[in-house]
Structure formats: structure tokens, C-alpha cells
């Protein structure tokens, strides 16, 4: 193998490696500094507390890999919690009907945004921004108050703990990991997944090579919509309420997780595994700060901001070198 080619291949992995190193070193520092930090449960709690973010970030990874962005995810999460709580609590619908309905709604919403983006050649930024306002606004047409959920299916999902030896996880965490696994298979072993990468590499070329550009684009936004709705369902399991102010700014956390996970914002390069690491990094920052005890929770934001700066500069350096 050509040494230069090998180097280029490795270079594509640098952001992922950096994230992995960061995660390990943060965990080590936490373990040295704070008593009780070094335990498997701390890691599993990261998954339990961030299951909904992880699911949303998987959808976001698809979108960003095509070179797009989806700002509507947080609002769609909120709308999903709201619709679920309203139908289950105030109309007495069965959760087994409500959950599929909510998932369908999110998927359809994403599909429509993808269709608009492609057919009218509008920036994804502005289309999904409109989607964000629309979904957030719709929450308040249902109720301006928080609706708490007392349905037994939801409460049992919230309370069930699946033991893993001495440790435990929640069903939501398992669902999130399943979504990551499914996303991984789709991205790497299906035509759709490869078309996503091709589209992010060069839309013009993808078109000239005869790839279904429109279908791929609408599909990634539909996937993101589905993931947002599923994230909303997981959030209802976690919060046991529907509220228009749930998941405010979640889209930005998701984007941050994807970027810290090494996916290039320009599209075409990145891994779902990176997104998992990115979500864990965000969760770990929060954990470290809560263990620290004296810092205000706003420090989470400050650290995420600083990390993002470092990562986007790193991305820039890598892509610039490639040219």
C-alpha cells in the first residue's frame, strides 16, 4: 500500500481518535479526582441520562453526513412529548397506539422538510428552522402547561432497571444503543448509507453517477424526524411529562455531539461510533461538573463551547490539508 494513501486514510480517523482519547482522559481524571467516579455505573448512567440525546444525534449524523443540518429536532422532541402526554392522559389512548403514531408524525415531518429542501433548492438551515418554529408552536396549541403522565406503561418504562451483573441500565438506554447499531448497519452496509456519504462528498458527482439524490435527501430528513420523535418518546419515559419547553436547545447539543464525534459539518466524512463518543463526552462533562459540586451547571456549556471551538478548528486543519 502506498504510504501516502495510508496517511490520508488515517487522517480521516483523527477526529474520532481525538474524541476517544478525550473521553478516556476525562474519565481517568474524574476517577483520580473524585471518589466513586471510577465505576461502571457512572458510564451506564451516561447512557441512561442521555438516551434521548443519543437517538436524536444518530438522526442528526445522517443529515450532517449529507452536508445538511436539521434544526427542528429539539422542537420535534418537545412536540412528541406533548402529543404523547395529551393523547394518553387527556384522551385515554393506548400508549401502544400513541407511540407508533408519534413516530410516524416525526418521520412524515422530516420527509416533508427534506422534500422542500430538495425540490425548491432551499438551504436546509432555513427550512428546518421553519420546522422548528412550527413544531415548537404546535406544542402550545395543545397546552401551555406541562402535562404529567401517570399511565402505567410509561411509569414502568421509567422505573424498570435491567440488571447487568451488579450494574443496571434502563430500557431507553438499550433502545438508544439499538438505534446506534441499526444506524451503523444502514450507513455502512446499504446503498442508502453509501449514497449518504456520496451526497456529502459531492452532490454534483452523485447526480452525474446516477445516484438517487432526491430520494436520499428526503430519506435522511425523514430518518432525522423519526429519531427526533423516538427521542421524544424516550424523553417522556425519562421525564414522565409532556411540555412545550422540553428539549429547548437540544438541536444544538445534538449538533455539538456529532461534531465532537468527528463528523465533518461539510458532509461526507464521519462515523456513527463517533457520535456515540460525542454524546458520552457531553454527558461526562456534566457528570464531572456535578461531582465537582461547587461549579454552576453553566460550566457545562462553557466547556462544550470551548471543545467545539477546538474540534471545528481541528476539522478545518484536516480538510485544508487534504486539498
Amino acid at each position, binding site marked *: *500500500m*502506498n504510504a*501516502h*494513501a*495510508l*496517511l*490520508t*486514510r488515517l487522517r*480521516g480517523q483523527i477526529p474520532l481518535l481525538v474524541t476517544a482519547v478525550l473521553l478516556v482522559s476525562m474519565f481517568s481524571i474524574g476517577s483520580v479526582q473524585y471518589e466513586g467516579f471510577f465505576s461502571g455505573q457512572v458510564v451506564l448512567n451516561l447512557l441512561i441520562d442521555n438516551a434521548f440525546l443519543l437517538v436524536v444525534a444518530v438522526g442528526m449524523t445522517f443529515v450532517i453526513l449529507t452536508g445538511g443540518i436539521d434544526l427542528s429536532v429539539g422542537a420535534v422532541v418537545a412536540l412528541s412529548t406533548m402529543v404523547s402526554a395529551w393523547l394518553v392522559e387527556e384522551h385515554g389512548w393506548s400508549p401502544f397506539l400513541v407511540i407508533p403514531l408519534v413516530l410516524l408524525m416525526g418521520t412524515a415531518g422530516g420527509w416533508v422538510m427534506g422534500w422542500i429542501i430538495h425540490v425548491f433548492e432551499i438551504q436546509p438551515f432555513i427550512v428546518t428552522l421553519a420546522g422548528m418554529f412550527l413544531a415548537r408552536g404546535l406544542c402550545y396549541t395543545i397546552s401551555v402547561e406541562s402535562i404529567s403522565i401517570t399511565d402505567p406503561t410509561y411509569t414502568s418504562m421509567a422505573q424498570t432497571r435491567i440488571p447487568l451483573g451488579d450494574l443496571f441500565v434502563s430500557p431507553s438506554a438499550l433502545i438508544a444503543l439499538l438505534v446506534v447499531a441499526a444506524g451503523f*448497519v444502514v450507513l*455502512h*452496509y*446499504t*446503498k442508502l448509507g*453509501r*449514497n449518504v*456519504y*456520496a451526497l*456529502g*462528498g*459531492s452532490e*454534483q*458527482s*452523485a*447526480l*452525474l*453517477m*446516477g*445516484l438517487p439524490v432526491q430520494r436520499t435527501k428526503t430519506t435522511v430528513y425523514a430518518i432525522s424526524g423519526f429519531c427526533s420523535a423516538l427521542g421524544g418518546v424516550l424523553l417522556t419515559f425519562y421525564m414522565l411529562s409532556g411540555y412545550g419547553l422540553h428539549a429547548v436547545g437540544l438541536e444544538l447539543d445534538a449538533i455539538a455531539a456529532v461534531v465532537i464525534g468527528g463528523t465533518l459539518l461539510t458532509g*461526507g*466524512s464521519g462515523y456513527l461510533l463517533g457520535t456515540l463518543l460525542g454524546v458520552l463526552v457531553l454527558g461526562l462533562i456534566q457528570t464531572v461538573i456535578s461531582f465537582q459540586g461547587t461549579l454552576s451547571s453553566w460550566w457545562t456549556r462553557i466547556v462544550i463551547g470551548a471543545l467545539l471551538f477546538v474540534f471545528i478548528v481541528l476539522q478545518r486543519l484536516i480538510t485544508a490539508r*487534504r486539498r
Partner: protein
Amino acid sequence: MRQQPVLEVRGIRKEFPGVVALDGVDFRLFPGEVHALMGENGAGKSTLIKVLTGVYQSDGGEVELAGEQVRVTGPLQAQQIGISTVYQEVNLCPNLSVAENIFIGREPRRFGLIDWSAMRRRAAELVRGIDLDIDVNAPLNSYSIAVQQLVAIVRAVDVSAKVLILDEPTSSLDRDEVRQLFTVMRRLRDQGVAILFVSHFLDQIYEICDRMTVLRNGRLEGEYLTSELNQVELVSRMIGSELAGLDQLGGGKRRERTAPTGKAFLQADRLTRRGAVEPYDLDIRPGEVVGLAGLLGSGRTEAARLLFGADQNDGGTVRIEGEVAALRTPRDAIARGIAFCSENRKTEGLVGELTVRENIVLALQAARGWTRPLSRTAQDAYALKWIRALDIRPGNPEALVRNLSGGNQQKVLLARWLITDPKLLILDEPTRGIDIGAKAEIQKLVANLAEDGMAVLFISAELEEVLRLSHRVGVLRDHRMVAQLDNDGALTPERIMATIASGAHA
């Protein structure tokens, strides 16, 4: 004696508003041949290719593929019926691996999932089939443009191309890469693929092509066997009518010129940039006009851009007034007293939305720095002075530049540079697309500037014009400076053309 053509085009016609780009062109392509499509810029080459690949729809005429009449409706459909095109800028995905680029959209699958090992194996076979030694798992962008083009060709042929169109594939390749491409082209030709090859490089055409079709002004000039048409004849067929129609303004009188002697203002020594221009030497003395002649794409502009720091040289040095100067950016060159009027006055030079005055003072203001703004009175004075000196019309400094005619826009661009009082003025096609009167004025102006001691590098496609103004003419061909001819009165356009065609020192 020959078999059926695989592709036959009859009486193709394509019009754009106000222009007939193709006027009843016939064209034949046989299986197992490499065919060159020749013609100067604007002759209709790229329009014909775009009609064949479905980018444009023709306004008349018919296309027959393997004996059947077809309508080419788009690039995708063209590929499906067997016409594939590889462009100079590779249309593949740089982020994907070589193997994926060959197979994406038609990946081998097993149990519904992509079978990566089969894909890699088959890609490796295909790549080995053209003697290319690369790792098919590496991302495409880890390889040179040359290799990327070969990968594009592999994909095109594997998708089942009967006709392979290569549009200027060699423009950014070096010698070895061109040789590699030619080896692949010969192999495909022997397998029966019909290859249409477009290139500005005459040597390459003569090396690889069996036949050629020459277009001129949207019309078919003729179809020739490469072995039966020598390069001088080819060049005159390509540009022949332009030569005959050269304007004879100013009585065609050439000034008696004694080339200024003395120390050179600028000396280029083995200056080069890979893929743009091979090492060349050039001296320009104060008061001297040096012309650069050559076909379009021969490296005229590229050679000049190196002198202005618009592109970075890979080798060689530039001395200015005897001192070695590193011209890394246009700023460096401007600081050394070099000005460059680019050939794309619309895209690279003037700001159409600004007024004549604002355009004129732009370079001067930039040279002073934005912290020291020119006063409005000073701006008006400068603008009026140069409007008068160059006779820019309308003489209104507040007119928007985009509303001016081409010739007057060119004068505004000249004024902008002259205001900075340059010692070397580089003019790239300053008279292209402007009317005859304005052309003569600009030529006179250049002559006067040189008489006043300015060094001028004058690039033009019109040989008469180059001869009329220059003391010396550098001739470029295939990115090489093949000769520098003294304009001693005996130099004729025919002799320059012969030099361009033969590449020999005439």
C-alpha cells in the same frame, strides 16, 4: 473498408440567443479509434460534446448510436445508452474509496447488504486491468488528479461505455501521467471502445489520435486522418479564417522598433509551475513590449500569472531590477511596481456595481491602506484626469461600470493600474471582445506607455496585434516557451504560426 460508425451525428444544429453555436455539423466515430475534436475557442467543440452527453438538447439534426437513432436527453441517460464522459474536473466523490467510486449505485450485495469484500476484489481486478497500482480501499482524494481520472475512466467503461468522451483530460497532468493515460486509452481502443479526445495539446493529438474532426465557427471544417494532415495545416484550418480576416487598422504599419537595451526590469529564470507552465526564461526591459503568442491554453496566461504572484511558482526565480524577488501574492508584485490587467475583466478585475471613479481609485486606495482614505476631491481629480487621458466614455465618473461598453471597461481597468504608476504592465488579452476603434486606442496607449519607459508584457490571441506592438515575441506551445523571436521587421504572423505548429525555433 471500414466498419459501421458506432456514433454518427448528422446536421446537428444548436442555437443560443443571438449565436449559432453549431451549424449543421456532421461527425462520425468508429469503434476502436481515438478521435480528436479540434477547433479554437468558440468553434463549437464543447457545445458538440454537451449535445452528445445530453447536457444541451440540439435544435436540429440527428444522432445515431450503433445504427439506431437515439435522443440524448440527459447525462444519466447518455451513460445508460453507452456514452460516458470524463471531464477535466473529475466527477467522482473524493471522500469515498476508489472501490466505492467505481461501484457506487451498483454495489455487489449479499443477503441484501453491501458485500464489501466482493466490491474490493472486483475493483482491484478492474484497476489492475489497466495496470494501475493503487489501493482501492484508500479514499479517492489521496490520489492525484491523474489517477482520479483513470478511476473515472474505469467506472465509465465498466458501466458499459461504447463511446468514451475525454474532455481536456490532460490539462492538469504532467508528462508521465499523460503517458499513463495514453496507455490506458490505447488499451481501451484495442478493446473496441470509441474514444473522443479533446485537448489543446497538438503533440498529444498527434501522438494518440487516429483521426480528427476540425470545427471552425460552429461549422464542420473537415474530417482528416491524423497521418494526412500536418500540424501547420491543422493550425491554419483551425484559425485560418481569423488570420485572413485580421483587421488592418492603422494601415497595418509596424513602427520601426529598436529594442531598448540596458538592464532588464524583470528577469524570470527557469520559472515554472507544475501543470501550468514549464520552466521559462524571460527578460523585460523598461520601455520594451514583449508579446506572448500561442494557442488558447498554451500557457500564456499561466506564464504571466507567475510574474504577478497570482499563482505560486514551483521552481525558478524572478529578479526585479537585479534583485531576487519572492512574488508570493499579487500584493508583493504590486509593491514591486507590477500591474496585471486580467483577461476576464468582468470576473477578475472590475466591480460592475461600482462607479467609474470608485473602480479607478480602487487599486490606489488599496496601496495606501484603508486607514488612509483618499478624499473625495482627490478621487474626483484622479478619475477626471484618467477619464480624459484615456478618453473613457461616457466621461461621467459616477456612471456604473457595468453600463460601459467592453472597450471603455477595459480602459477603466487600465486606468486603475496606471494610476499606481507601475513599472511593468502585464496585459492579458486587453482587446478581446471590444470594438475596432477602442482596440486601436488601447494599442496606441500601450505603445505610448512603452515609449515613456514602462515595461509591458502583452498577451493576445491576435498575432497581428502582438506583432504590431511587440519588440520581441515569446511563443508558447503546450505550456512550453518554445521560442523568443525578435520582431525585426521580417517576422510575420505566418512565421509565428509555423513556430506554434512545429514547436521548433523558426
